[in-house]
């Protein structure tokens, strides 16, 4: 059986909120390293990979690896019944039909218990190769969210160019064009507001803004986001948490071959 206790229900709430618009049904794979999830959107353009490490739970008990097939809309409904500060415990049998969620509120001694039905999900698992990215940009997640939202008003796609000088997000659409450039800088007082660029070679790629705006829903998870790019491979957008991560991979838009 599985029993995993999370000090703050808010963590799971935010994780599920971040991915529920991209993926409808997916498996939460529980094993010794923690609770992991990998899923693609319907069109197979983007992939989300999430890990909540076992260290993040106290305790984390698992007798046998188990895949919990969950409808994320249903899970969201149940998680709405939890407050961010509630203690959350996930429980499931070895071959479960349901996942049980218990929310404990220390302040007013309230215990809420919910169960959601699980489903059989036949999922393809993709092997994500270790990649040395040509450019890794870390920046405030709120800043990235703002840029994506702003540019999305003008165009469907954004070109991201990283060079030694900085990173430039630009787009052009029917009504006109726009661009935002961030230069590398270090904020000593508030390190989370720094922009860092690690670069081995300049890169320029084009991506769908619709997807990026969608990824930005994970901004609540972390104040810093890392964008990793190499020419002709999917973009990696990573939100790191204390004991885990949510990573989004987005396939680029490419020019015609002919």
């Amino acid at each position, binding site marked *: 059986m599985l029993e995993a206790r999370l000090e703050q229900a808010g963590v799971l709430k935010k994780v599920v909120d971040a991915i529920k618009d991209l993926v409808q049904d997916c498996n939460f794979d529980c094993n010794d390293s923690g609770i992991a999830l990998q899923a693609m959107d319907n*069109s197979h*353009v983007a992939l989300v990979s999430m890990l909540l490490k076992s260290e993040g739970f106290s305790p984390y008990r698992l007798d046998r690896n188990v895949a919990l097939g969950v409808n994320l809309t249903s899970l969201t409904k149940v998680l709405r019944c939890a407050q961010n500060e509630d203690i959350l415990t996930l429980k499931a049998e070895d071959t479960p039909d349901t996942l049980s969620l218990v929310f404990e509120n220390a302040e007013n001694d309230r215990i809420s218990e919910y169960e959601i039905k699980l489903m*059989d999900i036949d999922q393809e*698992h*993709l*092997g994500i190769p270790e990649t040395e990215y040509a450019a890794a940009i870390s920046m405030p997640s709120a800043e990235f969210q703002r840029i994506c939202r702003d540019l999305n008003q003008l165009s469907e796609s954004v070109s991201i160019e990283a060079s030694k000088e900085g990173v430039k997000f630009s787009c052009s659409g029917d009504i006109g064009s726009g661009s935002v450039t961030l230069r590398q800088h270090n904020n000593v007082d508030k390190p989370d507001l720094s922009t860092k660029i690690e670069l081995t070679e300049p890169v320029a790629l084009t991506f769908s803004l619709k997807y990026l705006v969608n990824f930005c829903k994970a901004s609540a998870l972390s104040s810093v986001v890392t964008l990793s790019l190499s020419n002709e491979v999917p973009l990696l957008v990573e939100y790191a948490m204390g004991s885990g991560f949510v990573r989004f*991979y987005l*396939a680029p838009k*490419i020019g015609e071959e*002919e």
Partner: protein
Amino acid sequence: MGIKGDHSEKKLRSRSPANRGYAGLFHLLEENASDAIKQGEIKQHFGRKIAIDASMSIYSFLVAVRSEGQQLTSETGETTSHLMGLFYRTLRMVDNGIKPLYVFDGRPPTLKSGELAKRSARKAEATAAHAEAKEVGTAEEVEKFSRRTVRVTKEINDECKRLLTCMGIPYVEAPCEAEAQCAALAKAGKVYAAASDDMDTLCFETPILLKKLMLSEMKKEPVQEIYLDRAMELLDFTRDQFIDLCILLGCDYCDTIPKVGPTTALKLIREHKSIEKVLEHLGPKYAVPGNWPYQDARELFKNPLVTDPEECEFKWEAPDMDKLVAFLVGEKGFNEDRVRAAAGKLSKNLKGNTQARVIDFFKPVPKTAEELAGMKRKNEEKVAERKKKVKAEKTEKGKAKKGKSFHFHFHVPVLCKKDKSEPEKSSQL
């Protein structure tokens, strides 16, 4: 390349109860290998090149694209249903980012002559019935028989090719069966999938078959995607066994054995592995057609006459607006504004970047033996559950018919204690 009108008239076949093949295989997969079928929206296929069985599509347009039961016609009375259908449905695909490649039938294989003769006979029957219905029948009957008299003539095919050329959409002409050519293109990776409502395409080994791609927007039906390898895995069949199963279910090339339906066919191939062995063990109850050419049918599926996919050349180009307007508006009386607006979409969707997919970069981790076993087990559970349900429904009905006295006589209280969920037991008593 000679194009015989009758060659593409498949829709009719699936409507006639004597031929269960197409519906048969799909339902069989739905019931026994449901994970091999995926439903999705048309837009999920953006950016993909898809080979389409043109002759079948054109036939279905002639049958389905109608107004008040009549085929659409130009002012001079020429039929335009096929052009209307082809133009707007192609546009819908292009609008969703799909790159359609049409494949036209060539000369039908000789083995199909039996089937074709039957179709002609049915057609003649329908024509007679249509004439009669016009005299004495209801409007409904007239429409029904008029649909059945539809034939795809060489002129219709040529007009469709002309339209495609104006639209900048490529087509290839198959030496023989279009489905076989579509499958060969998909198998060679030249296109993502073959699109046809003809399940035979699976026997020609297309890795992926798309059904219902060509339906009109208004039907709101999902596109069905069928994976051949998954289907064979779940049925636990080799390709040879799969083909033999399809022959038993009914294909274009030979008759079926009377009284062998989908369930029996599946059971027979599961048990005996090939038609040869099935025939050895078949009881006298079944009358195998004399001179049954199942071996030739099998050969046609395994080594169909197709053009080497490497030699097929096709390119998507910008539409020729002037020619398109001259043809559709000038000759066929289409609305000019609509044609121009549509053609604008054609050129817009042609250029620009294409969205790649993550699966183009990250490859699926092959399933472990354990996972595969799990998949099969789950599939078997699903099949068993469905059977149980069907059986339960049947007994439920049976009970209702027999009435209450049945329960009264047999001291039901004992049964009641058990559970309502075991209705089979009560019928066994």
